[in-house]
């Protein structure tokens, strides 16, 4: 009956508490109760010592098998739960062996057996039931990590148990020792002692000593439910549950056994064997289930392995493709650069030649427009190519050590020359003020030059714009350029007295096409920011003065890390002022 109820389908594993209670405890209790009632008549099944010997021998073998299994399981899985049950079965098997051997040898001494058999039975049962209580009440949580469906309470317990394993272990060792001594002394002393009231002839409970182990089995059952072991998926736990109810009845029936080998005595013995048998069946089922799950998870694992290999392959192929497309993109940028620059050359050169040959001012102006726009096209081409490189992450830097001072001075010279040759209608003076500082840095010289040139050019253009739009007093149009070494960083600042930065543009100032100078491309600040960032530096800007309206002009700054061990600053006291007077 019990064993048949163990054949359940995996899908019904997560049954409710009550379903389990009915299926594994209440339903088995019905036939067991009937058996218990039938066993009340001591004469229904009278057996002999020899029957008892065989039944007990059977129990010894089953208990030994269980002990072997549980202890092996405990060792392999490092599971104390199994260990205690294993020790319980082992001791039970040993005491039963003594019980059966002595009772076989002493078949001719019924008076000795009358006491010896109940006492040794008691010893084995009390020890086994105690072990079950310890295992279920204390250690079921510890083994829960391998099993599914663990309640919150148990998780807490588990954590607590992990936190104080030593304390727990000590307590349990003490219990174990006491119990072992008790059981052994009961078993050994049974050979020559008759315990007080071990068999009471004139009372319906003839064997009161069965009561403590009965209580312990019930406690074990209680803890089984309390610790929610019924939630475990393993058939092993269902077997334990079935076994407990059978053992409880075995104890009840044994308690009213009036004499050795009467109905109750025999039935209790048979039930004990049946309990062990249920346990073994459950272990077998658990093993089968385990293997089935293993195969299932193996299949899943193989499938996921296959999938991950496929993914790996896909990623590899995609990477190759990406690399290929990256190469093609770079190749395209290079060819595009070449093809865009080539036609600009004859336009620029020939219009310049043409310009020098034309004497008529009106025609000169037309050619000037052509030259200006050819140059603009040239700048736009360079800027767009730079942006393309930045955005395709193919901006390569060629690091070399150089003096930042040199490129600043060169840029100032170039811009000054340009301003002189431009012959604009501007009547005012733009002064570029710079106090030379030798700062040696390791960076891409051409790129840093590009940034400085770009920022200076902007400063000049926006200052010019202010000069053209407003009446600016003499000597007020100054662009201050400064370079200094601050904590291992070269900081270059360009402070103009131009129109300032529109507060609305400020947050996206360094984005593409956010702001544009006259004849500019709108890409300069974006490129400058990208170059500085590629060097591990920072670029920022702000309007001068307290007000943010930009009436005091703007200041652009960038920082660059100075190469280690190579930095030196030489202060040059003579201030170099570049004064440009136009018309």
């Amino acid at each position: 009956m019990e064993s048949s109820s163990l054949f359940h389908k995996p899908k019904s594993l997560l049954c409710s508490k009550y379903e389990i209670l009915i299926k594994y405890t209440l339903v088995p209790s019905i036939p067991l109760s009937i058996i218990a009632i039938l066993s009340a008549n001591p004469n229904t099944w009278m057996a002999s010592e020899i029957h008892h010997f065989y039944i007990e021998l059977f129990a010894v073998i089953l208990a030994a098998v269980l002990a072997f299994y549980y202890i092996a399981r405990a060792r392999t899985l490092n599971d104390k739960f199994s260990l205690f049950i294993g020790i319980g079965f082992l001791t039970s098997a040993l005491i039963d062996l003594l019980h059966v051997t002595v009772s076989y040898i002493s078949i001719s001494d019924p008076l000795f057996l009358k006491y010896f058999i109940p006492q040794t039975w008691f010893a084995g049962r009390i020890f086994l039931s105690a072990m079950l209580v310890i295992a279920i009440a204390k250690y079921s949580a510890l083994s829960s990590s391998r099993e599914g469906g663990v309640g919150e309470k148990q998780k807490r317990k588990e954590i607590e148990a992990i936190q104080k394993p030593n304390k727990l272990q000590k307590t349990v060792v003490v219990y174990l020792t006491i119990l072992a001594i008790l059981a052994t002394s009961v078993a050994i002393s049974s050979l020559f002692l008759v315990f007080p009231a071990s068999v009471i002839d004139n009372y319906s409970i003839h064997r009161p000593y069965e009561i403590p182990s009965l209580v312990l089995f019930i406690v074990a059952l209680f803890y089984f439910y309390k610790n929610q072991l019924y939630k475990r998926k393993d058939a092993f736990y269902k077997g334990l549950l079935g076994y407990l109810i059978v053992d409880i009845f075995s104890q009840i029936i044994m308690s009213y056994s009036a004499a050795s080998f009467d109905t109750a005595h025999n039935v209790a013995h048979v039930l004990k064997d049946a309990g062990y048998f249920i346990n073994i069946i459950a272990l077998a089922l658990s093993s089968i289930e385990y293997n089935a799950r293993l195969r299932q998870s193996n299949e899943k694992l193989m499938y996921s392995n296959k999938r991950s290999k496929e993914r790996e392959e896909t990623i590899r192929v995609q990477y190759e493709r990406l690399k290929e497309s990256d190469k093609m993109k770079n190749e395209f940028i290079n060819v595009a650069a070449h093809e865009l620059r080539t036609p600009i050359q004859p336009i620029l050169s020939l219009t310049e030649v043409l310009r020098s040959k034309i004497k008529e001012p009106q025609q000169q102006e037309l050619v000037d427009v052509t030259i200006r726009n050819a140059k603009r096209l040239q700048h736009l081409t360079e800027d767009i190519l730079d942006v393309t490189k930045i955005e395709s992450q193919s901006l390569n830097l060629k690091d070399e050590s150089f003096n930042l001072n040199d490129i600043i001075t060169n840029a100032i010279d170039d811009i000054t020359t340009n301003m002189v040759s431009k012959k604009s209608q501007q009547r005012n003076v733009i002064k570029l003020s710079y106090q030379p500082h030798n700062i040696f840095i390791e960076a891409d010289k051409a790129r840093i030059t590009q940034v400085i040139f770009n920022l200076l050019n902007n400063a000049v253009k926006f200052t010019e714009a202010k000069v053209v739009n407003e009446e600016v007093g003499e000597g007020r149009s100054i662009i201050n350029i400064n370079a200094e070494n601050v904590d291992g960083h070269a900081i270059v600042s360009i402070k103009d007295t131009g129109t300032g930065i529109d507060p609305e543009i400020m947050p996206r100032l360094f984005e593409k096409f956010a702001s544009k100078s006259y004849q500019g491309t709108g890409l300069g600040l974006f490129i400058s920011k990208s170059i500085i960032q590629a060097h591990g530096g920072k670029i920022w800007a702000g309007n001068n003065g307290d007000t943010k309206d930009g009436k005091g002009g703007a200041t652009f700054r960038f920082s660059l890390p100075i190469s280690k061990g190579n930095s030196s600053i030489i202060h040059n006291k003579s201030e170099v002022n570049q004064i440009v007077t136009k018309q």
Partner: protein
Amino acid sequence: MSNNRNTRILLVDDEYDITLAFKIVLEESGFVVDSFNDPLLALMNFKAGIYGLLLLDIKMPKMNGFELFRQLIKIDGKVKVCFITAFDVSKGDVKTGSTILDNNNDYSDKHIIQKPILIHDLVNRVKAELS
């Protein structure tokens, strides 16, 4: 200007418009310029001891500027050279600029003129190469 007069320049670029523009600009500055749009033709007509400077485009069909220079230098071992290219050379992108440039690292970018170049700068560069 007068000291440019004796200097003969060989200009080779597959683009006719480029050779035309450069020829005019350089001749305005007093140089004598022989221009070719076909590197093989330039090689066939090359004679030792005539030219003060070779201005060679790098990317050309049939034969690139570096290969042409290797052939020309066999004929005239003393001739100076300056390459012209529209590929990136000055901004540290030589590695990705072109495979032709990458394979000819020994010609440092000191002797490479990047197109487009302003006429003023071109003349200055040529003068610098000759001095």
